[in-house]
């Protein structure tokens, strides 16, 4: 089971945080800070694991990947495979890349909802339900269409009502 997914930049600013068990925001912030403190002290080209038990309690493991200015961090327990989760991070980043065309930190900052949608397509309540980035892309496109359609309906009555009240 995946416990949490976090994306943060190299300055420690959170770019995405998802905890699959409810945690109060203060606790979330504390955990993310704890993770960042360890991450930023690590050299390049070392293994992608961190001892997470000191931060997240027993039976937790942490895998991260460092891309340009961002750390992608997945926290999970013993029922996941470390290397498989590393692959999962790869899938996530690839999907982001496809979705935003050459993704960079700014895309993730402004694409708040979309990033969450992508993650939700992959991980459902802590369980991985989709590992193919093309399948995820398909779903994302469908969802975007649906959203756009429902918003298009909203625009017309809204502007119409605007005229009426003038």
């Amino acid at each position, binding site marked *: *089971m995946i416990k949490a997914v976090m994306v943060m930049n190299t300055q420690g600013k*959170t*770019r*995405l*945080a998802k905890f*699959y068990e*409810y945690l*109060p*925001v*203060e606790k*979330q*912030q504390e955990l993310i800070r704890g993770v960042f403190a360890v991450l930023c002290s*690590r*050299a390049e*080209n*070392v*293994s*992608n*694991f*961190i*001892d997470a038990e000191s931060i997240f309690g027993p039976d937790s493991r942490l895998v991260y990947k460092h891309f340009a200015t961002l750390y992608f961090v997945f926290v999970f327990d*013993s*029922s996941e*495979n*470390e*290397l*498989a989760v*590393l*692959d999962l991070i790869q899938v996530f980043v690839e999907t982001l890349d496809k979705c935003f065309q050459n993704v960079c930190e700014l895309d993730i*900052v*402004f694409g*708040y*909802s979309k990033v*969450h*949608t992508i993650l*939700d397509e992959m991980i*459902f*309540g*802590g*369980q*991985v*339900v*989709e*590992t193919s980035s093309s399948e995820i892309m398909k*779903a994302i496109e*469908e*969802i975007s269409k*649906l*959203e756009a*359609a*429902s*918003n298009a*309906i*909203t625009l017309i009555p*809204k502007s119409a*009502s*605007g005229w009426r*009240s003038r």
Partner: protein
Amino acid sequence: MSGSSLMDSLFQRSLEDLIKGLRQQLIGEQAFISKALEEICKEIKSTDLSTKATALLKLSHLSNLHFHGMSFAAFHALEVLSSPRFSHKKIAYHAISLSFHDSTPVLLLITNHLRKDLNSTNEFEVSLSLQCLSRIANVDLARDLTPEVFTLLSSNKLYVRKRAVAVVLRVFEKYPDSVRVCFKRLVENLENSDPQILSAVVGVFSELACKDPRSYLPLAPEFYKILVDSRNNWISIKVLKIFSKLAPLEPRLAKRVVEPICDLLRNTGAKSLLFECIRTVVTSLSEYESAVRLAVGKVREFLVDEDPNLKYLGLQALRIVAEKHLWVVSENKEVVIKSLSDADPNIKIESLRLVMAMVSGHNVSEISRVLVNYAMKSDPVFCNEILGSILSTCSRNFYEIVVDFDWYVLLLGEMSRIPHCQMGEEIENQLIDIGLRVKDVRPELVRVARDLLIDPALLGNSFLHSVLSASAWASGEYVEFSRNPLELMEALLQPRTSLLPPSIRAIYIQSAFKVLVFCLHTCFVRGGSIVPSASMDNFPAGVSASASHESFDEISVENSADATVVHGQTHASAPITKASIVNLLNLVELALGPLLGSNDVEVQERARNLLGFVDLTKPEVLNSSVQEKEDSEGKGVETSKIIKLMCDAFSKELGPVSLSAQGKVSLPDGLMLKENLVDLEMICGDIKPPSSYSFSFGSPYEEEKDWLSFSNLHIKEDSEQSNESTSLLAEHRKRHGLYYLPSGKSELISNDYPPAKDPTLQGDINDNTDDLVEITEESLNPKRKPNHGKPRPVVKLDEVDEKPVAMKQPEPRDDSLSSAVRDVLFGSEDIPPTSSRSNLSNNPSSKRKGKEKQHTDPRVESRENVIDRNSSSRRSKDRSHGKERRYRSPKKKNAEERKNTDQKEKEKRHRDHGRHKSRQRAEEPLKVPAQTSVIPDFLL
């Protein structure tokens, strides 16, 4: 729509505007956020759903990335949720899954929204709703929405179905009764050919099996089939996870899965799957030598891989193997040692653990030497990691692997001198512990302690303070082994001790006291010079100690300055002349004088003790030093008496105190602490008597019963009065020293639980009055405890019952979820863990009747009847519908039948299984031949 809300919606900032504003940082982040929050609070109350939704989205963003609570918006989120528009719904679901939890007050209002969306025709709406359910479901939600989830479990949209499967995990966890409804469909999905569905189901089962593997043993054949057939790595990994939990429970299952797992090991190209295979073999199948060899071969490939991740995981796997097959680690010794110098901290720590796993009695000194050298070169963090693991390994099980304690004490001394060392406290504990337990090592301990104490540089390192306190204590306690007590005294009183914290300073002073007494004793009582054997007659250490005294003169390991001072057999006493004693006393006065005004009570008190002693003895010492011989008989006697007393007081052997020592103090006769309390509670339930009440007053509770019969009001007053008098009595006793006097009633004594050393003290009092002084001295030094230790050749171990019996609860957690699952899989019978194995060992092909009997046997009479009726009705139904045969082979009837008995009841409630049955029946003939070869060896 009102005008204001229109303005709001027209000029509302979108999420993008918010993010842009945040990035510009014109007014500082916090100020901007609080301004934005104000806006949001206004906007979220708008009647326009779009405005509300945008506000909610912004709030979610702030909550998610800037950690501002959004619980105040819970109801607004529900309002947005009721919007018919998909985009609004999505925002609302996002907000809800971020912020809702079990104690959110509006949680129950969401049920109908969720139900509506679960029944939606739009798969994305269903997905949103399921996603939300998987995050926030509580008992009520899980219960109310179980029917919807059940329906979705057989949805023909894969997108929905796999999510429905995944949500089952949360629903089961929150509402175990849903197992009875959904479990069958969940199991049916195991047969699904679609990898996505299969992946989801196997994922769910691997989570479930993690918590309670035994309940899922009956499904082993299904998992086996997936293991053999699956071409999807993700699924294979999850199935392996399941088997690594199941295999240890059932040996025949382990035997069965070894081969396919080895095939996977040989053939797979995916590292993740390969690693999972390795892990499964080394954790759960370690009895299968060939499999382990194969896995270890693969581990070796990992170890020499360039990728640090693989190397790290390889080392991890080795560590798991090491528990049972240590030879594997020795085989890969070179790689492991080499990894100690890897750049990667994870790899370093992992290889350190492996190295420690290799440590045994005969190689501990070499390995420690290598590691200590290593620690000196490495960075502070890893250095302490190394030191910590050496310390914990060597001290394991009362220094099990340490043979040569002189070596170990030297090593401890050396370790504490390593610049980065921060393990001071652990070293302190071990030094003291070894001093107490191992008699033979004391001379060496004193030597190591002296070397540490005498070095003024060490006092500046705050990490070493605790080591120094242990050294000070050891050199004071075992001063008789010191070659030069005067030098020790100077070390203990050196000016730089002012750098020590007061608690340690107090120990220094106390040790100085002991050393001083020892010096005076040698000087005066023994007439200025001592023959070693004579000096020892007071000490329990006796002959062995004096022997070692002489021996280390000959060896003279340390050729330090003091070795030259010492000559001949009277080495210890030679430097102690009257003049040096006078110097010593002056030194004490000089060093401790300022401490009389110390702020720390402990330091002050001990300094006073020591100075008082000096005041007492000094005139005599001066006197006798002037008149040399003549008068030493007259007045000197008193002084030497005092000195002798003090020396006796300090020479009492200390020993380790067993953790259970207090438990050994037998309760006085007639003392019934617990019974009294229970009775009191029963009698005056609502009065709440003060805790000292029953003991101190010691009144038989018949009297209290009488009080009870009066009236409640009176009781209250009475108890208060009695309480008052009790406390007065206690105070009186304390003031007049009557506290410890034996009293007629044992209850009175029990006012205080007797301290552990009480009996010995009492015995001492009776012995002679001289010992009274000793006792008072003992109370000065809190470390002094009666010696319970049983002398053993080298290590003085505590009694066997040192460790209190751990309150382990080997009983598997039989929570409601697992019992529900068992109900479904095994029938309503709750299988006790031990009997399940015996059930499993039944010959699977034995007749159905016999089995039926066996299962019903343990049940109570009345239930037997019910079950019998059930099973007979089932049989008839089976014949007519073939309902329950389904996909299971006839060989597995055992499980099947137990399952059936329960499904009977279940199907009374849910009779909508029809369409599946026909499909399953059609498949059955195909499956039977395929599985017959597999199943017989399986359980059940």
